């Protein structure tokens, strides 16, 4: 942090007038209110994680129902319509409500610690992102009231996670299911974009002194690239969703065939978002792996500049390959060839990462602990998924594979074997930092092996299924097509995988309460997050560190005297500036988000026709929600952002009655 900014706060501090009661800053440090008003990036990250894991389990149950239906030919576990709902919600849930927020949890929790910051750039905006994400998740899942409570016309969407027009039109999907889906995704988009802008500003502006861009930990780099991908790609789907919403509710004809609309337009808009989305899911995972492998090899990352560069390169190329999802839409020879070649090109930076991970381990001293097991599992599985991806780039061959089980095998190798393995590795890796406890090696490895075996047994046979002609999104199949055995094996595998996940989480919950306590830096880490006590104090760093090398904490451990001297000077300087500057908690982000929730529910759950009372609810709740959001934003800006100061005793505990009280609305 630069010191000029801090002086500005200082001079302002005495001039701040007394706050009216309504704008009193919340002071709770424990209890429900403290969570609802928190702006602490670690608490927000934790909440993201909790919600994401909840939806991960929901999506998992949906997946198991799918596998139960397909275990035998002509299965009858689910009806056709319910099966279609399951695969739609499984995809939507896993992508938007499980993997993305779980990545966001790590961005929130770990990234500021890695760059030596005390919080993100806009702490209240961060809280707003979290609560808007929750609002979006609720709206997206509103459709379950239909199947669960038997409410006619309110179903969960059954149009596929990609919602191809014109199936999503009122003509082919009456009822509210698609409205929930559209509004839910819009809110999630708002949350994602707000969060990403926050991360971008944080990474660019809040780095500790000496933390140059080329010293950023790779995970932080991937956070930055992912945030840019989100900010640039979500507008495309936002436009598509607004157009669809207009078509469904206000009679526009963007996609409406009878009015001359173009369904193909949806596909382009969707995949302009959808393909970068794939990298939004995998780049954070690559970042996590690029942290774990060096730590457990006890070596720096091999070829750091090229790993960073290839990550950015994937980000750029990710915008140039969207139509490889559309090789069967009759794009013509030239467009097909261009997108096929661009798709092959993206394999190069991806391959570079794998080479460099192996280079990192080469000559190292590999500590085969649980996070390392998941990380190695990631490298193997991601390689298989990457190779089947290269196969898809050969467009003519892809016309046989697209929309078949081969594709399902491919992207689950990338998304489970890739993203999920890395996220599970990350949970294991950073668990001691977050909670000060360590998962038992035995149980950690047990869960790894069950998950690893279950995953492969589930998804490897799907390659055979796809090549043997089984199309995806089919609720039934006949027994005479040679698909029975692979389907049976895959279903058994899915239940093994489910068991593995259950063991994993049981172990995590046990460890949270009863696990072995560990001290600071249990893995001999290399990056700054390991330099602080665990669990981390709310202010993160007692003294903002000065960074001298890429693996900042590794350098500190090898230059203790130099660092200690620097710290002493820095601490004095900081104390002279008024102590540790912290942001105030605030309820207004929650209020603004709940307004969006009210408007989201109001505008989707009621009938739009003018001759029914539903229109009054629809209009009334939408306006009320908008008003609540405006009120939230209004008070949010009124309450000010001056923050308060902490002073620490020698154990790192805030000193009571000195400094930290003047922030609580008593200026």
């Amino acid at each position: 942090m630069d010191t000029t900014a801090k002086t500005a706060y200082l001079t302002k501090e005495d001039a701040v007038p007394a706050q009216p009661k309504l704008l009193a800053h919340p002071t709770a440090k424990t209890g429900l209110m403290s969570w609802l008003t928190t702006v602490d990036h670690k608490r927000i990250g934790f909440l993201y994680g909790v919600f994401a894991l909840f939806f991960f389990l929901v999506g998992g149950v949906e997946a198991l129902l799918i596998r139960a239906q397909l275990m035998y030919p002509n299965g009858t576990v689910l009806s056709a319509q319910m099966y279609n709902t399951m695969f739609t919600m499984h995809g939507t849930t896993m992508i938007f409500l499980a993997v993305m927020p779980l990545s966001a949890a790590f961005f929130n929790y770990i990234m500021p610690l890695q760059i030596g910051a005390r919080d993100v750039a806009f702490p209240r905006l961060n809280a707003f992102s979290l609560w808007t994400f929750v609002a979006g998740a609720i709206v997206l899942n509103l459709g379950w009231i239909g199947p669960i409570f038997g409410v006619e016309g309110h179903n969960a969407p059954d149009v596929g996670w990609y919602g191809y027009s014109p199936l999503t039109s009122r003509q082919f999907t009456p009822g509210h299911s698609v409205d929930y889906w559209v509004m839910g995704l819009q809110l999630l988009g708002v949350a994602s974009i707000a969060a990403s802008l926050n991360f971008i500003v944080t990474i660019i502006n809040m780095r500790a002194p000496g933390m140059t861009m080329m010293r950023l930990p790779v995970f932080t780099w991937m956070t930055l690239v992912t945030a840019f991908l989100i900010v640039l790609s979500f507008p495309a789907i936002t436009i598509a969703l607004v157009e669809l919403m207009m078509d469904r509710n206000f009679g526009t004809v963007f996609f409406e065939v009878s009015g001359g609309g173009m369904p193909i337009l949806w596909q382009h808009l969707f995949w302009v978002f959808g393909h970068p989305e794939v990298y939004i899911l995998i780049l954070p995972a690559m970042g996590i792996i690029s942290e774990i492998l060096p730590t457990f090899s006890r070596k720096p990352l091999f070829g750091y500049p090229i790993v960073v560069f290839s990550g950015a390169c994937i980000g750029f190329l990710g915008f140039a390959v969207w139509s490889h999802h559309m090789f069967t839409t009759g794009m013509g020879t030239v467009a097909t060839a261009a997108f096929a070649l661009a798709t092959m090109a993206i394999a190069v930076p991806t391959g570079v990462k794998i080479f460099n991970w192996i280079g990192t381990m080469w000559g190292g001293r590999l500590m085969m602990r649980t996070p390392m097991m998941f990380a190695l599992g990631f490298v193997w599985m991601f390689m298989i998924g990457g190779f089947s991806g290269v196969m898809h780039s050969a467009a003519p061959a892809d016309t046989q594979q697209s929309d078949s089980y081969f594709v399902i095998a491919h992207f689950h190798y990338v998304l489970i074997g890739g993203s999920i393995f890395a996220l599970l590795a990350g949970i294991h890796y950073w668990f001691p930092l977050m909670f000060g406890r360590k998962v038992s090696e035995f149980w950690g490895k047990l869960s790894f092996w069950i998950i690893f075996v279950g995953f492969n047994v589930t998804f490897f046979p799907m390659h055979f299924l796809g090549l043997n002609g089984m199309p995806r999104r089919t609720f039934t199949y006949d027994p005479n097509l040679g698909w029975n055995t692979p389907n049976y094996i895959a279903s058994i595998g899915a239940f093994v995988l489910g068991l593995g996940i259950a063991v994993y989480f049981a172990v995590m919950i046990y460890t949270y309460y009863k696990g072995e306590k560990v001290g600071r830096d249990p893995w001999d880490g290399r990056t700054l997050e390991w330099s602080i006590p665990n669990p981390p104090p709310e202010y993160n760093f007692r003294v903002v560190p000065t960074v001298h090398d890429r693996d900042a904490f590794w350098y500190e451990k090898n230059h203790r005297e130099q660092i200690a001297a620097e710290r002493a000077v820095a601490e004095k300087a900081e104390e002279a500036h008024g102590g540790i500057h912290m942001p105030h908690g605030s309820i207004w982000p929650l209020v603004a988000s709940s307004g969006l929730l009210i408007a989201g529910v109001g505008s989707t759950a009621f009938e739009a026709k003018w001759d029914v009372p539903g229109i009054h609810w629809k209009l009334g709740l939408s306006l009320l929600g908008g008003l609540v959001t405006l009120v939230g934003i209004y008070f949010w800006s009124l309450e000010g952002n001056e923050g308060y100061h902490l002073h620490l005793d020698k154990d790192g505990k805030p000193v009571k009655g000195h400094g930290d009280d003047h922030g609580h609305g008593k200026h």
Partner: protein
Amino acid sequence: MRFVPSFLARAGRFLAALAGLLLLPGCDLNFWRMDGHQSTMIAEGPVARSQLSLFYVTCWVTLIIFILVGGVLAYTMWRFRARTEADERAEPPPQSHGNPLVEISLIGASVLALVIIAVPTLTAIWYTHDVPEAEKKNAYEVTATGHQWWFKFEYPSEQAAVDTAGAKTPLVTGNELVIPAGRPVRINVRTVDVIHSFWVPKLGGKIDMIPNRANFFWLQADKPGYFWGQCAEYCGDSHAVMRFRVIALDEKDFAAWKEKQLALARSVAAPAAPVAAAAPVAALRAFKTNEVGVSEAFDRNPLEAWRAKQAVEKDENPALVAQGRELFATKTCNACHAVRGHGAMGVQGPDLTHFGARTTIGAGLIENNPEQLRRWIRDPESVKPGNKMAKAYRDNKITLSDAEQVALTAYLLSLK
């Protein structure tokens, strides 16, 4: 090494035993051969062959890279792993940061490997796009149109009789596309509602049927055969049961088939004398939800089964056929289905003029025999969730008694 090997081995053995146990009951372990009816690994025409050989190129290139990279990765994991806890705590290895020469060479090697894939990819893109110039004159044209959830096939160059006065209309069939073997077939794909996709794996990859978009595609069958196809783009409730067949015939058979198709629907002379009241008809057995409607016997030689289907049913009962023909009008079947020459002109459902000569019902879903046909017309919703015929039954309160089901079945099967 304290934790991994013994534990790994135990867990592995346990899971292998578990998997073995679960797999025992009656599983076909030859699935890796991928020789099913819809296999993409068996190419029976030049388009599919071009796609398959490209697939093998990608497969071999990636497999070789996988073995090389995977081999190095496996070696690294084995060679550099910490073998004891003391090993873990030993002095860290040299803190090297990379090797630009190695990195650049690996990038170069990857690009080269991709070129091996790129060249045949580009060749195949142009080859599979349209009928080769030299063969264009010889190409046969059909139009396939997707409906929720069945396929309409139209032959623009074949004029079929509409009535005895000599009016003509392009030939239309449903769900079973008959093509000449050994001749390129250019298929225009269209849709009337949502997006569908036309896919006959053994003859070629898929092409989407997108509203407001005039897509086309070509394929060719090397020799006569019976091919399975299926809609490959999710299109709503019954997407999974939107299937079809392609039957390729040699020149002589194709001409014979065409001649028959172009004619009006077959009429069976009603018996002159009124028949004595028929014996009461037994109710059809109950079918389980989503019960299988295909038989192994059919699969043994599907092309022969198709040929057999062209002949008049052995136990045809003219009285029943006449009754069924009447029912076809009184139950308003003709509002949606066409039977050329029998006064039925509906266009919403498949054309049934020569329905009895088809091998399947409900868009390639169940076998076309009296039992399955009766199952279908008795309760179409239970066979194909959400279909329009079931909706028409509900909207117009159409019910069919057992006797009526039998009569309609007899009539439909007489339409050879």
